[in-house]
């Protein structure tokens, strides 16, 4: 079962296999990491893997199918928008926590 590398490359399977590996890595990180920012990055790795699968599978030996590529572009736009939204929420949560923390500290240790 040894496929020659040129065949793998020309049919786009290498991209799909790489994409599958990225999906697995991202999923592992999403499950094991607790910090929301790391989870957001993990989800982006999963997304990149999916786009690689989608784009790679549309790649034929002679010509490239434009249909999956149009989907990939739309998907990337959606992913960027959602990542920005998620990052904004994480920043807001950090600000809220930072604003709440010094006040709590002040109560514990009154200023000298």
């Amino acid at each position, binding site marked *: 079962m040894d496929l020659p590398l040129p065949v793998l490359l020309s049919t786009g399977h290498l991209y*799909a296999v790489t994409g599958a590996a990225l*999906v697995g890595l991202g999923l592992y990180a*999403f499950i094991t990491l607790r910090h*929301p920012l790391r*989870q*957001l990055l993990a*989800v982006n790795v*999963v*997304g990149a893997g*999916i786009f690689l*699968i*989608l784009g790679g*599978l*549309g790649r034929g030996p002679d010509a490239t*199918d434009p*249909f*999956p590529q149009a*989907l990939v572009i*739309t*998907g990337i736009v*959606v992913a960027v*928008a*959602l990542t920005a*939204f*998620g990052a904004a*929420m*994480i920043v*807001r*949560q950090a600000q*809220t926590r930072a604003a709440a923390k010094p006040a709590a500290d002040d109560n514990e240790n009154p200023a000298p």
Partner: protein
Amino acid sequence: MSPLDLLMAAPLGFMAAALMLGPSGRWLILLAAPLMAGLALWLALLPPDAAYLVGQWDLPLGILLRADGVARLMILATALVIGAVGLHALAEPPEKPGHAAQAETFWPLVYLMWAGANAGFLTTDLFNLYVTLEMVSLAAVALAAMGSLAAALRYFMIALLGSLAYLLGVALTVARYDTVDVILLAQVAEADLATLLALGLMTAGLLIKAALFPMHGWLPPAHAAAPAPASALLSAIAVKLGFVILVRLWFEAFAAVTGPAALHVLGGLGAAAVIYGSIQAMRQDRLKPLVAYSTVAQVGYLFLAFPLVAGTVEPSGAWAGMTLHGVAHMLAKAAMFLAAGLMLKAVAGDRIADLGGLAQAMPLTVTAFGLAVVSLMGLPPSGGFTAKFLLLSAAIEQGAFLYAGVLVIGGLLAAVYLFRALSACFAPLAGAGPDTASRGPVTGGVQAVAPLALAGLAIVMGFAGTALVDVSAIEAPWATPTVIQPEAAP
């Protein structure tokens, strides 16, 4: 021009206008509510083969919008729910004390959810459905964040994972069939490994979005913490889109692939959701988590209907029961969340035990809550009763007594947990005697009428039974197929 694209374009226009107008953008709902209700009614009355190709691109590249029975009913219910919730929010701005800017951000999100939901109900393109799913999720997460940022962030992460699972399934479908249109897929779908994997991934992702047990964990904290109008939209609309896409996948695109065993897995999860959600709702001592867990239970009925629809040669009864249950739940649950919000504001608490004396202090709101209870429990006459009756007769006809039993027990459990909240309203006020003047303001006006109107519509559905059953059967996948005739270029 056709109502099919206007139903998507108009809310997006309102969203842009609301963003630009800022604080005065809230008045747009006075224009949007009647306009969208009119468009939805126009859609409901269109000839059965109404369809529209966006930009006149032919399939498989183009995106087909199609007004089948499910889309017609869901879009009409969405217009009624968002219209009523919007008018309620106009009179009762959804904000936490000290967060006045929040009320302003509510409006663009409402229109975004409206556009996404309408587009999702109409489109037959799996990738376009992904985009609409993300539009609705984005609006839903932001609405949930108005209540609790932590719960919203948790919802966001889990929803993102669900979206990606769905997207991976779509990618596999593209690779296998080179099309993502539901109607074209129905003609070519085969039960091979790639198809089953794709369907499994898409289903798993959508079950997260639809909050079917055991993927419901994010729902109660997010729905319970949000302001009442936001909770109403989350429970009524956001979870329904995942359900409708699953209907498209399981009964249309991959109807030839899905086997009875897989359908019974979904039905079994639905039955488990009914029991688990009801028991969890009974255990809550605060009102909004109770209503949120009731959503977990009610979503279960939608999936319990899957094996009932597939298990018979004449599925019109079970199909209508499933669709009407979704519509009745939208109306009744939105009414219940709005009423609960008003009641909790009046008593300045969140516990069920705090509700004493409210029946005298705010009769309109408690009546709205009571009517919503009637429909959610499935007491006649109501939309909930019609839906449960259709599902129950389908289950008994097929000898599916387990599902029939869950339908009956679920109704009884709903009675237990909903009447507990309702009876608390009639309890005398502890320590204050019969005097109810101190029980907060007697609210009237639009904010009290909106939940009453929604709950009333859920009841009226019970009288419009056969007409709604007929609408639900339009272009249903099991009905005699009519050739789709996209509108000619103008």
